[in-house]
């Protein structure tokens, strides 16, 4: 009995010490390797689980979709012929635009390339803090890639890729308490920092006191930020707080462009970065 108790105590101490080491040295190579290896235990859930659950859930719908698809296919074939003419004309304009943008040194923002991904997991205890998508390094997803979502037919910033595995990735939404985005109104004028609060709202900080920020103003990512490409719709100002006497800037609440609760699919884009920040 005592022997078993001793063994239990030793094992408990071992796991406690191991946990504390993981906690205290999160960025060391050994802990990072342990994390990557342990990450493979998510495979049955996040890769196979989501894959087969998706197929099983959609079987009845897929039959109906197949019939509709056939009808749509015929209509789309005609549309494609029509669009091909437009495409050729647009390609010529795009080439010209690329050439002129390069000549003016404005070529960093376009073109955007990326992949579509499905949201496969959201953690109730970390609802606004993280989620998983079903695309990983095999599909070309890289760390810090920008994630866009769509709401009411409009694209908006959702967050960035935090960790990449072979077939899935962990995303860090802008609502996470550690996220921040440099943003500005469409017309420019000033830049401010939008920070996640761990709730559905964002907090806009460091807004110059002389700026005329009003509720309803639309905000976009600023080209000055390194993590996100400029010009992506971030959200709308919900409430502007009056300046505190001891501060020389004002703050505001932002309603994000995309409601994280309804997120089903996202577009992960690989924004081309300037040479100096490629390793970022």
């Amino acid at each position, binding site marked *: 009995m005592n022997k078993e108790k001793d063994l239990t105590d030793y094992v408990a101490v071992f*796991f406690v010490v191991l946990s*504390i080491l993981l906690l205290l040295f999160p960025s060391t190579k050994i802990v990072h390797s342990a994390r990557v290896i342990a990450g493979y235990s998510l495979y049955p859930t996040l890769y196979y689980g989501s894959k087969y659950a998706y197929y099983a859930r959609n079987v009845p719908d897929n039959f109906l979709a197949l019939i509709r698809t056939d009808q749509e296919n015929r209509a789309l074939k005609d549309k494609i012929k029509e669009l091909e003419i437009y495409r050729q004309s647009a390609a010529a304009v795009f080439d010209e635009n690329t050439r002129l943008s390069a000549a003016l040194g404005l070529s960093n923002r376009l073109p955007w390339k990326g992949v579509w991904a499905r949201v496969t997991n959201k*953690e109730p205890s970390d609802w606004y803090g993280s989620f998983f998508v079903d695309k990983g390094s095999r599909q070309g997803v890289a760390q810090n890639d920008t994630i866009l979502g769509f709401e009411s037919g409009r694209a908006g910033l959702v967050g960035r890729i935090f960790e990449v595995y072979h077939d899935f990735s962990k995303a860090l939404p802008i609502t996470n308490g550690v996220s921040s985005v440099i943003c500005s109104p469409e017309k420019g004028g000033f830049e401010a920092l939008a920070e996640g609060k761990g709730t559905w709202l964002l907090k806009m900080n460091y807004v110059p006191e002389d700026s005329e920020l009003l509720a309803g103003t639309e905000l976009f990512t600023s080209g000055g930020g390194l993590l996100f490409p400029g010009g992506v719709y971030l959200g709308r100002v919900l409430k502007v707080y009056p300046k505190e006497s001891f501060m020389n800037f004002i703050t505001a609440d932002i309603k994000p462009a995309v409601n994280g609760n309804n997120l089903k699919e996202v577009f992960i884009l690989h924004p081309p970065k300037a040479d100096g920040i490629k390793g970022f």
Partner: protein
Amino acid sequence: MRQLGDVLLYFLTGVFYWWWTGHLSIFGMAPDFIFLAALCVAIIASPVKALAYGFFFGVYMDLLGTNMFGAYALTYTLLVYGIHSMKRHFDMAAPFSQIITALVMSFVCMLFYQGLSLVLAKINPLSLKNFLTEPFLNAAAAPFIFFIFSRLKRKFGIL
């Protein structure tokens, strides 16, 4: 063979947790089945095996989140050790005691994790909504999970 069963149970618990939270959570709330699994294992399994289960269930939760890696591992290891020490004094095979244990330990674990997070990362990961509802959901689900785990132990010798 038993070890294989343990590994399978570990992964199946993860898959079940993922499926439930993805499809059956209401307003972002669902019982924390990983916590319940750790709790039931602590009651049913041998102490050494239960500690290993607790640690790896914690690692699984850490991998799902973006906060401190190792915080859930520490929380669940201590949870299992605590339950192991308590079960000598209380009869935890009865559903009522499982409900009370799940309720109390949910609050304890949430507060412990919150404390760790505030001390080490200076962020507040716990929403009031979760804090007020999740322990009761856990308490309601605890006897069912315990029943399944005890059946698995009896039938297949897992745990």
